[in-house]
């Protein structure tokens, strides 16, 4: 393994992480809920009265974040190398997988590990392991 030193951005990663943690902290302390994005979005597809507005508001906040960022600086454009077929396959897998697992990088990764939940620790280990293997397979064995 070699570390990609030019790409490694420990300080902005840490600062952004603290902000993500602060968002999750605020959400549990004020709203009493886990800031798990797949669950928040997935719940919209199973609408229950009185349970829709806060979900839409959270998603609206996420989607509006680039505009808020733009008030200070132009956002860095994401580099999306995957083609359209791969994006559709990835989206389907992420959608189905996170719902079956009751969580994603935010609900299990950030909130679950913060709570020392054994379920979330297992989920995080499994989806990270699957992610590592998938990238290894695609980049180094299949050369995609």
């Amino acid at each position, binding site marked *: 393994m070699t570390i*990609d030193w030019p*790409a490694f951005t*420990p300080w*902005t*990663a840490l*600062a*952004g*992480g603290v*902000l*993500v*943690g*602060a*968002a999750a*902290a*605020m*959400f*549990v*302390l*004020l709203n*009493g*809920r*886990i800031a798990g*994005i797949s*669950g928040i*979005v997935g719940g919209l*597809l199973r609408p229950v009265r009185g349970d829709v507005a806060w979900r839409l508001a959270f998603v609206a*906040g996420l989607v*509006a974040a*680039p505009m808020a960022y733009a008030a200070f600086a132009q956002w*860095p454009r*994401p*580099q999306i190398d995957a083609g359209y077929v791969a*994006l559709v*396959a*990835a*989206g*389907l*897998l*992420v*959608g*189905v*997988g*996170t*719902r*079956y697992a*009751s*969580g*994603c990088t935010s609900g299990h990764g*950030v909130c679950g*590990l*913060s*709570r020392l939940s*054994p379920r979330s620790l297992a989920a995080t280990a499994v989806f990270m392991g*699957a*992610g590592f*293997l*998938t*990238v290894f397979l695609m*980049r*180094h064995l299949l050369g995609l």
Partner: protein
Amino acid sequence: MTVFTSFLAGLAFGLGLIVSGMANPAKVLGFLDLGGRWDPSLAFVMGGAIAVGAVAFAVARRRTRSFLGAAMRLPASRTIDRRLVLGSVLFGIGWGVAGFCPGPGLVAAGMGEVKALVFVAAMLAGMAGYELVERRRSAAAGMPGAAADTAR
């Protein structure tokens, strides 16, 4: 009030993803590529988030109501079952294919990136598919609307 704080939490979460670089799939894939030139940044994002989150959840655990009076809803389940593991496998594969998980996908969609919009549309389709299967299954089991998992 909780709708407004929900918006603010989503906004702060999204800003954190942009600042940390995690709204950029190429950077996420740089972390997942252990066999190439590895970018450890994502580990620092998780570390920073968990350091703050751990304090908040330690406080939250001792309360039955939030500071705004909302019910404290923390997942109680501790069982590691097949749904959790297989679901996480599928999610991890999808994450590795494109470098997007749900939050960054939505944030990049907010940047107007067409590819992110395609990812989000497919993700919603996947979630809707899950919903249909679950509804059919709970109907077959004679428990209309009784879905198996907790909101997360």
